[in-house]
């Protein structure tokens, strides 16, 4: 596919079987209203929000139920109108239990967010728009859940010249962003235009893997009028990795340990863009999202518009349950998602997919020694040496691993995907990163 701008090819990467055909042609369906939602209080990276409602309070749909606990934090809103129940514990997607606010629906589903629509955002002050995005609780919906208003507030000394919209959706099986770009094309583009206004940039790229030709065509039709350039990219995982995407679109490489804004870029997920538009133009805070429920065991794979606080069990019920034995339930995609042991896990702002895998499709790990085949080295998009570094971690030599840049690992899973010895490399790197972070924190605490 012809590209409107010059693109660059990032190092390594893989082509896993993408499984997107299961769900990419099914239009997104709105989930029926549930009787009860359990909305996780912390759905963002950063400070945990604080609940502002009491048991027995009546709330409207979109009303604030937990306020941000700091600048890097995002508020949470009621998914429907009704009464507040208990603060309950629900299983978290990353393991462990997390607190959640129970909302019992009154069946009326009445809006009452207290946020006024700003249809005339073009003539609105940038700070007001930014505040609206913060108030609407918008976070990075591609996976990291980093509060969007923080990303849109780069320190004054950083010159930002490019806004990048991440529509790559390189994770196999997931089609939520694909459906969103196809069905809410203008919302995505308008949200991008709002973000571009806030950042004062006029270069806006939308990177999208070329396996979504229908979405590309739909976007191209409207992109010009919002000042967005749609750039089809080769299909290669992890094309949607933040640093990889920036490199692919601009040829700039973010320094190790650096941030996208160091090279003048801000990256936003397309889902977050649509949420920005809804918050500004409609005055609707973020209470629902496109989520793909898929996998070969699922009876009717597809994409659903789910409100936060919906459980995996309910989401699976919408999809008709399972028609074959599932060995794994994964929040997210097969490369970076988290396996779950409970169906009580709830959908949150970064739940891009609920994926079920059968036994024969899942990976098995061993503790075989590294045979130094070099496949991981060839494939690692961060150009690390996963094999040798994993050996250092195995011998608990974390200092050595740190010197060999284990902190640059983005846990994309590529190395583990290709390893013929079936070593659990990502697991080693997660452990090393946790150990090194703990050590750094301890050193900081000592200094203070």
């Amino acid at each position: 596919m012809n590209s409107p701008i010059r693109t660059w090819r990032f190092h390594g990467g893989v082509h896993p079987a993408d499984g997107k055909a299961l769900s990419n042609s099914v239009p997104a369906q709105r989930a029926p209203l549930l009787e009860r939602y359990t909305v996780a209080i912390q759905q963002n990276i950063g400070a945990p929000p604080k609940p502002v409602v009491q048991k027995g309070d009546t709330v409207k749909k979109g009303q604030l139920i937990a306020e941000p606990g700091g600048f890097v934090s995002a508020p949470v809103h009621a998914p429907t109108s009704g009464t507040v129940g208990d603060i309950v514990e629900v299983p978290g997607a990353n393991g462990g239990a997390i607190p959640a606010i129970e909302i019992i629906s009154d069946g009326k589903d009445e809006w009452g967010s207290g946020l006024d629509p700003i249809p005339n955002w073009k003539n609105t002050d940038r700070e007001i728009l930014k505040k609206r995005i913060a108030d609407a609780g918008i976070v990075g919906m591609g996976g990291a859940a980093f509060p969007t208003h923080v990303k849109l507030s780069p320190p004054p000394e950083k010159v930002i010249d490019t806004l990048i919209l991440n529509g790559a959706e390189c994770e196999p099986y997931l089609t939520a962003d694909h459906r969103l770009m196809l069905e809410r094309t203008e919302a995505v583009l308008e949200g991008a235009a709002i973000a571009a206004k806030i950042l004062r940039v006029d270069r806006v790229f939308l990177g999208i893997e070329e396996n979504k030709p229908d979405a590309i065509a739909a976007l191209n039709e409207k992109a010009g009028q919002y000042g967005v350039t749609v750039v089809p990219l080769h299909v290669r995982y992890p094309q949607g990795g933040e640093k990889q995407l920036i490199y692919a679109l601009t040829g700039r490489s973010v320094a190790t340990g650096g941030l996208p804004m160091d090279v003048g870029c801000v990256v936003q997920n397309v889902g977050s863009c649509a949420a920005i538009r809804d918050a500004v133009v409609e005055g609707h805070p973020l209470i629902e999202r496109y989520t793909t429920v898929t996998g070969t065991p699922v009876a009717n794979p597809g994409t659903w518009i789910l409100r936060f606080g919906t459980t995996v069990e309910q989401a699976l019920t919408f999809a008709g349950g399972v028609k074959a034995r599932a060995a794994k339930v994964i929040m997210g995609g097969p490369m970076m998602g988290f396996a779950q042991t409970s169906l009580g896990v709830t959908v949150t702002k970064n739940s891009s997919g609920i994926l079920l895998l059968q036994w024969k499709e899942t990976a098995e790990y061993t503790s075989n020694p590294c045979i130094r085949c070099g496949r991981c080295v060839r494939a690692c998009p961060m150009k690390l040496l996963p094999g040798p570094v994993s050996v250092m971690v195995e011998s608990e030599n974390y200092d050595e691993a740190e010197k060999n840049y284990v902190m640059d690992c983005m846990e994309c899973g590529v190395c583990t995907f290709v390893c013929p010895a079936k070593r659990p490399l990502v697991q080693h790197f997660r452990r090393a990163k946790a150990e090194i972070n703990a050590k750094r924190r301890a050193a900081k605490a000592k200094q203070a």
Partner: protein
Amino acid sequence: MSEEIEKNNIALPEPGSLVLSTSPHVQDGDSIARIMAKVLICLLPAVAASIWFFRFDAVRILVYCASFCIFAEYGWTLATRQAATIGDYSALVTGVILALNLPPGAPWWLCLIGSVFAIIVVKELFGGLGQNPFNPAAAARVALLVGFAGPMTQWAAPATGSLVSGATPLGAIHAVQGSADAMAQLGAPDNLMKLFLGNVGGSIGETSALAILIGGLGLMAFRLIKWQIPLAMIATIFVFTGIVHLAAPGLTPGPLYHILSGGVMIGAFFMATDMVTSPITPLGALVFGGVIGVLTCIIRIWGAYPEGVSFSIVIANALVPLIDRMCYIRPFGWHSHSVSALNIRRGEIK
């Protein structure tokens, strides 16, 4: 579907049966056993050529080495109470490559000693597949050459069966050293053709450059080896011997003769490329191949042995940690200005 909870006639996965493990949850399906099986397939042309030229001798040696290697590894895992590892076929690969490196007259006990040395001493004592610093087959060939020089240099002309000493193409070089005419004769096209096809004396599997090349291309097509290693090794030998031949035509024959004779081909494609004992980075692989090429030329031209490929591979194996450190690759986003200019490429791996 008894395992699933039924709710409004909708089946859901039973939470207790779900598997918890870290991402990624899918793999590309290649395993060590599959890699080794593919290597075995790529060895088939060389095996066929050895049987074609050396008939029953080749069959005998192949069967001996393959079974001794497998038994040695199985015995070792039994004795040390480890899980059996013969299922990954790596012992079989070692056995076949070792067999291809033995002379047609090799007696059964030579095969036994070579196999046990390769599997137990070179591989298992270092911790098994993945931990061994030296290529088992190359190290075993070197050990046998040093310890049993007699039987290791009983060469037979192909398909005649009469044992003669020193009748290999490389032995021929030493016999005529000093005469530029004789050297030129060695490099004559019909002679090179014989070398290319393999109708000459030598270890059973190393004589046919053609057969090895076919297998070698297979290795590259399957992406089983770092192509940089054979390329760098063969190119280095070509350039090195080419220069020496031009400078002193009576000292050594032309570069093609060197590349096609002895263990260069099998060494370049099947032994130097052993992934466990070669550098892990692409640049390291280039350097590694070059080092083997230079060492081979030095041993062949000025050394005491007519052949030097196995020696060179073993020496280069020992240099792998050093090469890996010098050919360190920096992560994506590493900029030279982020560290001292004096510290560039001083490897982080220790």
